[in-house]
């Protein structure tokens, strides 16, 4: 049996686990896949988070990708980092860089167990800040400067490819080289607030083709989190695991302990359980109904008769789900264009699932005072929070 086929049947423990430590974030990126902003009051406590780390150690999960929100805003962030190191669990954390000052960089450089990933989504301030908010480009580069000055070895620079930065790949590589960093490029998913901007931000078919060629040229020197496996249908496979690992080799723990099949699928449909259950994370990973189902042989559906199915495996489950496409059909960005045809054929009656949780911050109500006090709906705040995030909420 090929390794990919073995992986599709699931592993004893995940290879790649993402743990969003908090929904709190000081930025409000328009494409945030966890719709972060406000802290959730039910967030795991320090003791609970340490318990998760100890469970990961017992399961021999070698490393965990920590994100958010902005994970460094948690008051116990450094304590949890130390706890992970003490328990032999490596950490790679994603940050917007706002809290990586000289002292933090020095502390990080002193640990063998920590890797840092700084996010930028444009190779220029104009392109980046339009997505991530004013000043965020400068902040990220400042963090990279601190890390370089502290002697931190090869941090990562993480870029989500959009229509506006797809032409800047060489410039991103140059920025990474300048800071002694490794470039990581991942796919824009229509998840969280990403669903609101996906139509206008996702790369065009031509851009995808160029991206594929660029990735092949750069091989393993550029990381991708294996997120472009759907592009393998163009021909040669890209480096890495070319499969959807959801619930099989990958999963997400969210800030309140909910375990989802993958970081891009925060929706009840992909919720396997919670680490607070008596069976713990290990029990959810091994025995949950959802993960057991995902590890059964899946039908390729409409894609099975396609000659490229072995290469792309039907693409990304979350991308299909949040664009209202059938899970056993082509990816919305199918290299052969089958996804585009399906997207165009969606009717007004096509149900497009909304994210299950939304912690987006909304502008304080006092900015738009009601004409009369009694005009204010007592549920206005609640309704605003529960509704979709306004476009361009980045500021």
């Amino acid at each position: 049996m090929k390794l990919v086929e073995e992986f599709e049947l699931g592993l004893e423990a995940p290879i790649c686990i993402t743990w969003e430590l908090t929904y709190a974030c000081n930025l409000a990126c328009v494409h945030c896949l966890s719709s972060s902003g406000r802290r959730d009051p039910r967030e795991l406590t320090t003791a609970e988070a340490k318990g998760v780390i100890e469970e990961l150690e017992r399961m021999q999960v070698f490393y965990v990708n920590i994100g958010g929100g902005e994970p460094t805003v948690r008051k116990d962030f450094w304590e949890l980092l130390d706890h992970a190191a003490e328990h032999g669990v490596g950490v790679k954390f994603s940050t917007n860089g706002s809290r990586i000052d000289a002292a933090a960089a020095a502390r990080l450089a002193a640990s063998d167990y920590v890797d840092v990933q700084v996010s930028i989504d444009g190779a220029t301030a104009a392109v980046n800040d339009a997505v991530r908010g004013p000043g965020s480009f400068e902040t990220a580069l400042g963090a990279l400067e601190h890390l370089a000055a502290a002697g931190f070895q090869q941090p990562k620079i993480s870029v989500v490819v959009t229509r506006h930065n797809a032409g800047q790949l060489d410039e991103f590589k140059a920025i990474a080289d300048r800071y002694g960093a490794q470039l990581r490029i991942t796919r824009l998913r229509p998840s969280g607030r990403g669903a609101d901007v996906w139509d206008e931000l996702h790369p065009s078919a031509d851009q995808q083709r160029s991206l594929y060629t660029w990735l092949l040229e750069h091989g393993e020197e550029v990381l991708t989190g294996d997120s472009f496996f759907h592009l393998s249908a163009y021909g040669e496979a890209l480096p890495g695991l070319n499969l959807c690992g959801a619930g099989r080799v990958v999963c997400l723990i969210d800030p309140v302990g909910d375990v989802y099949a993958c970081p891009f699928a925060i929706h009840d449909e992909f919720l396997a359980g919670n680490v607070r259950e008596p069976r713990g994370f290990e029990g959810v990973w091994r025995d949950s109904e959802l993960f057991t189902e995902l590890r059964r042989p899946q039908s390729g559906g409409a894609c099975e008769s396609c000659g490229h199915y072995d290469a792309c495996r039907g693409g990304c489950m979350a991308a299909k789900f949040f664009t209202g496409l059938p899970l056993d059909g082509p990816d919305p960005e199918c290299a052969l264009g089958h996804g585009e045809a399906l997207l165009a054929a969606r009717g007004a009656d096509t149900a497009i699932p909304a994210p299950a949780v939304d912690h987006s911050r909304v502008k304080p109500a006092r900015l738009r005072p009601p004409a009369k006090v009694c005009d204010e709906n007592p549920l206005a705040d609640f309704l605003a929070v529960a509704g979709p995030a306004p476009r361009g909420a980045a500021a």
Partner: protein
Amino acid sequence: MSTEDSLDGRWRLHPQVALRPERFGALAYHFGSRRLSFLKSRRLLEVVEGLEAAPDVSAACRAAGVPEAELPSYRRALATLAETDMIVPAEAPA
């Protein structure tokens, strides 16, 4: 860089490498290089776990029950692990 020809003497797992058994074999993770490798059979896992106790890699293979005819392919797999520092000569300092 090691090659198959330089797999002489006693070898062992790099001290920063952890092994996790899986149905198909095992995962090997190097905490120093942050590289993940796959051992594609349970027998290869047994071989790697037995390296340090054996005088050389061929003896480790035989101890794990590798048939003579398959020795070359196991040596190739071990050479790949040596190239990425997953296994190191036992004499080398940790």
